[in-house]
Structures are given as structure tokens and as C-alpha cells.
């Protein structure tokens, strides 16, 4: 009986181990989502970003230009979110950083009053 228990325990352990390894392997091969694992995360050289925004004569936001995007970020995705005084989103847009980085123009946020716009949030993400 003891021998049977040992054999059974060993079999379970081996089975569980291989099952876990299988799951990890599929994560490595198939997942492109950052949240999928504890991947190594660094930046592409962004220390800060600054924005210049424009308005029309009605005081509505028309576009923003994000300047000095590092060339090292080329190919990655820059996302910009407009936020109100409570930190709530007023609109967002994203685009792939072009080769060489530099200035990027974002528009198409819909009708957003410049008066209600109290800040921007940025994210640069990519592999």
C-alpha cells in the first residue's frame, strides 16, 4: 500500500510539473500582451514629453503636437489621453512613432472645450 501511494504521488507530481511547464511555454510563444507575464520592461529613452495644443475660434481643442519623441521609440505606440480636472478622460488617440521620432500630431478627439482640458496622459509601449 505504501509503495502504491508513493508511485501515485510521484505520478501526480510529474504530471503537474509538465502541465505547468506546458502553460509557461505557451505563454512565451503565443502571448504579445504585457500583462501576460513578468517580462523585462524598460523605456525607449523617454524621460518626459511636452505638448502644444491648438484651439479653434470657439475655444474647442483641435489638435496637439507632442514634440521631442525619441528616435529610439520608432515603431512603438504613443498614446495620448486628454483629461479633465478630475482626471477623467475627455478623449484619446494613439499612433505609431515614425522612424526618427520627433514631433507627432494628434487630432480627431471630437469636440473638447479647451477650458475643460486640464492635462494630458501619455504612454509609449512596444516590444
Amino acid at each position, binding site marked *: 500500500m505504501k509503495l502504491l*501511494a508513493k508511485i501515485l504521488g510521484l505520478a501526480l507530481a510529474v504530471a503537474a510539473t509538465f502541465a505547468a511547464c506546458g502553460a509557461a511555454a505557451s*505563454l512565451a510563444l503565443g*502571448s504579445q500582451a504585457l500583462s*501576460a507575464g*513578468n517580462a523585462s520592461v524598460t523605456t*525607449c529613452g523617454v524621460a518626459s514629453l511636452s505638448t502644444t495644443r491648438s484651439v*479653434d*475660434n470657439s475655444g474647442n481643442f483641435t489638435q496637439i503636437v507632442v514634440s521631442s519623441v525619441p528616435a529610439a521609440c520608432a515603431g512603438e505606440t504613443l498614446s495620448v489621453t486628454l483629461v479633465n480636472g478630475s482626471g477623467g478622460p475627455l478623449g484619446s488617440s494613439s499612433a505609431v512613432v515614425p522612424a526618427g521620432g520627433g514631433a507627432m500630431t494628434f487630432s480627431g478627439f471630437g469636440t473638447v472645450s479647451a*477650458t475643460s*482640458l486640464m492635462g494630458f496622459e501619455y504612454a509609449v509601449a512596444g516590444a
Partner: protein
Amino acid sequence: MQRLVLIFAIAIAASTSIAYAASLNVGSWHLWAGAQTLTKATCTLSGTTSTTDTYVDEKNPATTAGGSTTLSVGPKTGQRTWAFVRFDLSSCSIPATGGADSATLNLRITTAPASTRTLDVTPVLSTWDGTLTWTGAQALTYGSNFATITTGTTSNVTKSVTVTADIDALIKNGGANFGWRISEASSVTNVTTLFGSAENATAGNQPQLVVSYEK
């Protein structure tokens, strides 16, 4: 039986550890997140320190009127008068990375015309000063009319014009525009509207620019 449970638990713990270790090596990613908070404020400009204004007279094409206490606008052909006004934003200390949320030009009608007029507000895109003449005004570059002022026939009323886009552009580029021309298309009607100028002794009669901005 206890040993069986113990072995089973150890096996599960071991497999979990292996899975976690594997996920550490999934790959390398770049991620950066940041935020920019805007500061809002209001700046009001008036008076000769921040305002340049004048009017030009078609009948006296070489005459300057930069020191006049009123600005004349009249449509009569051959005797037209145009008013010009612009502001120096430097005292507002708005950085070029800032922008206007709203901007309003207030002009005070000190003497209203006998019949109501509709005046055009036109951006001036080349520089001028208080020595501007009618002849000089013909050589300036202008943008498109973007607003009108309906004068009415009552004196001592203030007319407001929204100039947000022009001021926003001016904040970003000090040479984007040089204020506005107030004029009316040529006609046979001999009427004149007088606005108070920056040299007017009554502060309330002077042109005023109110800018709500962010930086």
C-alpha cells in the same frame, strides 16, 4: 495517506514555481507613462503699455493718427476710415508652449453712427505701428474676415469679439498676426463709428483684450 497528500502538495508547489520562472523570460518590452498638468490663468490687457492702435484715412492717405483718443471707422467711398488695434502679450508671461482657452477683444463705441453698421474684423498678418497711414495700410497683408461688429446706434456701449484662434496662434508664434483691422465695405453712406483708443483718458473706453490661457 498523509504522505500521499504531502507529496501531492509538494508537486503542485513545484509546478507553480516552474511556471512563474518561465514567465519571467517571456520577452523584453518598452513601457513609459507620463502626465502633463495644465495651469490655467487669465490676463487682461489695456492701455498704451500693451496696446497699439490707430486709424487711417483714405482722404488723407499720408496722415497718421496713432495718438488719437478715438478710432474712426467709416465706409464712404473716397473717405473711408479703418481702425487698427493690436496687443503685446509679453506682460502676460505665457510661454510659447501654452495656449489660449478663450480670448475676447472688447471695443467701446464712444460715438455711435446714425444708422446701425456691420463692421468687419480682419486679422492683420504683417506688422504695423502707430505711424501707419492709409497708403501704408494698402500694403499690409490681411487674413480673412472672421467676425463682425454690429454697431447699433447707441453710444458708450462695449462690443465684444471672440479672437481665440488668433491669440492662440500669437501665443505660439509672436509673428503669427498683428492684431485686427476694423473696417466696412465701401459705400455711399456717410456715417462714422468712433471707438475709444488706448490713449483715451477714460480707462473704460480703451480697447481691452481678455485672455484665458493655459500653460
